[in-house]
C-alpha cells in the first residue's frame, strides 16, 4: 500500500510535535470587542476614514437616497448602470440612464461594458472605513461590483459598527465576502500610493443615516 502525501505530511507534523512537545496556550482576547458608539460619532468616524482613503462619500436620509444615487452616477458620466437582480428598484427611480439588471446569463467579461454599478452592502466598519459585501440582498455576485469602473455602494448607518471585531461578528462565513476600503490602490512603485488599479477606480459610498 502506498503512503499518500496526506498521511506523510500529517505523520510528519505528529512526529514534529512529539519531538518538541508544545506548551499549551490559550489566546488572551483582551483587545477591544463589542464596542458601541452613538450614531453621530460612528458616522463621523466612518466618513473620516472613507475620505482618508479617497472614497467619495454622500450622506442622506433614505428618502433622498434615489436622488443622491442618480446624482453620483450622473456626475461620473455613467449612462449605463448595472444592478443586482434583487436591488430595490426604488433606489434607481431617479436615474434616467439605462439600467442593466444582472443575470447569470450575462458573462462576467461583458460587465466591462457597464459605466457603473449600484449595490447595497452587508456591513461597515467605522474605524477602518471598510465596507463588507457578501452576496446578501442587493449586493449581487462578486464580479458585478468589481469589473465596472464606478461602484456606488449604499450603506445603512445602522449596519456600521465601530471596529473590526464587531464587523467580523456580523459576517456569514459560508458566503463569498469582500472587504472594500476605498478604491483599489497600489503602493508598489516607491511605496507611493496610487488610487485606481484593477478594481473600480471610483468608489462612491452613499450612507443612509436613518436606515
Amino acid at each position, binding site marked *: 500500500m502506498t503512503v499518500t502525501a496526506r498521511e506523510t505530511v500529517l505523520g510528519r507534523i505528529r512526529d*514534529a510535535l512529539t519531538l518538541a512537545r*508544545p506548551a499549551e496556550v490559550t*489566546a*488572551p482576547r483582551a483587545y477591544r470587542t463589542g464596542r458601541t458608539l452613538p450614531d453621530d460619532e460612528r458616522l463621523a468616524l466612518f466618513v473620516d476614514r472613507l475620505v482618508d482613503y479617497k472614497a467619495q462619500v454622500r450622506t442622506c436620509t433614505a428618502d433622498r437616497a434615489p436622488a443622491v444615487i442618480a446624482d453620483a452616477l450622473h456626475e461620473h458620466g455613467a449612462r449605463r448602470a448595472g444592478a443586482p437582480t434583487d436591488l430595490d428598484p426604488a433606489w434607481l427611480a431617479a436615474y434616467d440612464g439605462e439600467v442593466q439588471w444582472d443575470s447569470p446569463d450575462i458573462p462576467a467579461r461583458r460587465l466591462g461594458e457597464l459605466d457603473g454599478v449600484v449595490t447595497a452592502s452587508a456591513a461597515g466598519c467605522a474605524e477602518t472605513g471598510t465596507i463588507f459585501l457578501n452576496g446578501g440582498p442587493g449586493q449581487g455576485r462578486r464580479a458585478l461590483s468589481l469589473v465596472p469602473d464606478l461602484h456606488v455602494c449604499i450603506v445603512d448607518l445602522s449596519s456600521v459598527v465601530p471596529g473590526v471585531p464587531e464587523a467580523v461578528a456580523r459576517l456569514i462565513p459560508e458566503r463569498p465576502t469582500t472587504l472594500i*476600503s476605498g478604491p483599489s490602490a497600489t503602493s508598489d*512603485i516607491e*511605496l507611493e500610493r496610487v488610487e485606481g488599479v484593477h478594481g473600480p477606480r471610483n468608489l462612491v459610498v452613499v450612507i443612509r443615516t436613518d436606515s
Partner: protein
Amino acid sequence: MSSTFLGMPAVPPRSPYGTGNLRGERTFPAAAHDELRNEQLRGNLRKATHTIRGKRLAVTGELPDWERLRDAGSAIKTDTMNRLPELLEQLEGKVTEHGGTVHWARDGAEANEIVARLVEETGSDEVIKVKSMATQEIGLNEHLATRGITAYETDLAELIVQLADDKPSHILVPAIHRNRREVRDIFRAAIPGVDPGLDSVPAHLAAAARAYLREKFMTVPVAVSGANFGIAETGTLSVVESEGNGRMCLTMPDTLITVMGIEKVLPRYRDLEVFLQLLPRSSTGERMNPYTSLWTGVTPGDGPQAFHLVLLDNGRTAALADRIGREALNCIRCSACLNVCPVYERAGGHAYGSTYPGPIGAVLTPQLAGMHAAKNDPNSSLPFASSLCGACFDACPVKIDIPSLLVELRHQHTEQAGTTAEKLAMKAAAAVMKRPRLFTAAQKAAGPGGRLVAGRDRKISRLPAPFDGWTDSRDVPAPPRRTFRDWLASGEGEATLRAAAEEGARTADHPHEEEIR
C-alpha cells in the same frame, strides 16, 4: 500512551536541496558586498523603508489595544502550531463539504506537479496569478513554463519583476529595489503595444499595467493564488490585497487553485478579527488594505466553479520539530521586520538569496531548507546577516523573537559546522579565561604586539588564522595600553566602584523614583 505503537518519531525532512527558491548561489556577505555598491538600490531602499516605517508607526499608534492584539495574534498562532494536525483535517473537511478539492504536497516539486496537472486538465495553457510567497518559494512559474503553461503575474510589483526577468526583493513590495524611471523603462521594453511615450508618473505606470492585464483577467480561465489565512472551523480562505488583481483572479476564472503553506491555517473564523487588524497596519501601514476576499469552497453562480486547495509542507514540518525555531512559522508575511532592519535597508532583499528575505527570512529560510545541505551552504550565512539590534522583534505583529532565533541558529551552525581550527581556538580561549592568572598574562602579552600591528587608526583589519573569519567583515580595535582589569585594581577604579555602590544604596531607598518620573 497511544494503543497503536507507531515507532520512534523521525525528524521531518527539509525542503529538498536544489529545488525551489530557498537558497542563493552565494553567501550573504558575498552577495551583500556587491549590492552595497549599488547606490541606486540603496537610495530606493532607504526611501521606501523609511516611508513605510512612518506610516506603520502612525496607524499602530492609533490603536490603544495594539499590544493586546499582538499578544492575541502571537498566542493564536502558537496554539495553531500546537494543534496543526486536527486543524488541517478540519480545514480539509470543510473545504470538501463546500465543493472544493484538497490536495497535499510533501514538497515544492509535488505541489508544482499537482498544479501543473490541474491546469492541464482544464485544457488551458495560461494561468493568471495573485501574488503568492508559497508559489514563489517552490518556483511554480518556472515549473509551469517547462510544461508549456504561461503564468501571468498580476500584482503590479510582481509584474515589474516578471517583465524584467528579475527576482523579488521584498515580501510585500517585490520591486522595491526599482524606482519609477526603471519601471517606466521595463514597461516600455516589455509590455506589448504600450505607449512608447509612457512617462514615469506612478499613476500612469499603474494605468499601463491595468490596460495590459485587463484582457488577461477577462480571458484566462485558470487562476493560481496563495492564501493569507485558511480557517479550519469554516473552510474559508482569504487573500488580503490592494490592487483588485486578487479579486479579479479569485472571481473571474472558471478554476481557482490555491497553494497554501500548512502553517497558514487559523482555528476560528473569529480569529480574523485579530489578524485583519494586525496585518494591514503592520504591512502597508494602512488601517485596512483596499480589498480582502474571503471564500469558502464553491458558490453556485458566483466566481470559479472549480476550487482546489494545495496544502504545502516543503520543510515546514522540519521547522515545527525545532522547539525554538518553530516560532518562525507564526509569521504572517507582513514584512514589517524588513522595513525596520538596518541590514536589510542597506543590503536589500536579493542578498539573502531566498524568497524570504530580511530578518524573518534569515530565520525561516535555514529552517525550511537547512543550513548544511552542501559544502559552504549559502544558507549557513543567513543567521549572521543581522546586528541583533532587536528592531524586528519590536515591529513583529505576532511577537516573533527573531533575535533569539538568530542566536539559536548561530549556535546550531557552530555545533554542526564549526571548523576544527576555530573550535581549537575557542577551547584554548576557554582554558585561558577560566584561569585568572593565565588570562592576565595573556592580556599583557597581547597588548604590545597588538598595538604594533594595529594601524594609525588603532584598528587591526586582518587577524591571522584561525581568527581571520572575524576580521573578514570587521575590524578589531587595538588592545588598550591598560586593560580593564588593571584599571579596576587601581585606586581610580576602586573609587569609582565605591561611588557607584553608594549611588545604588541611595536609589534603593526610593525604588519607584524612576517610574514616577
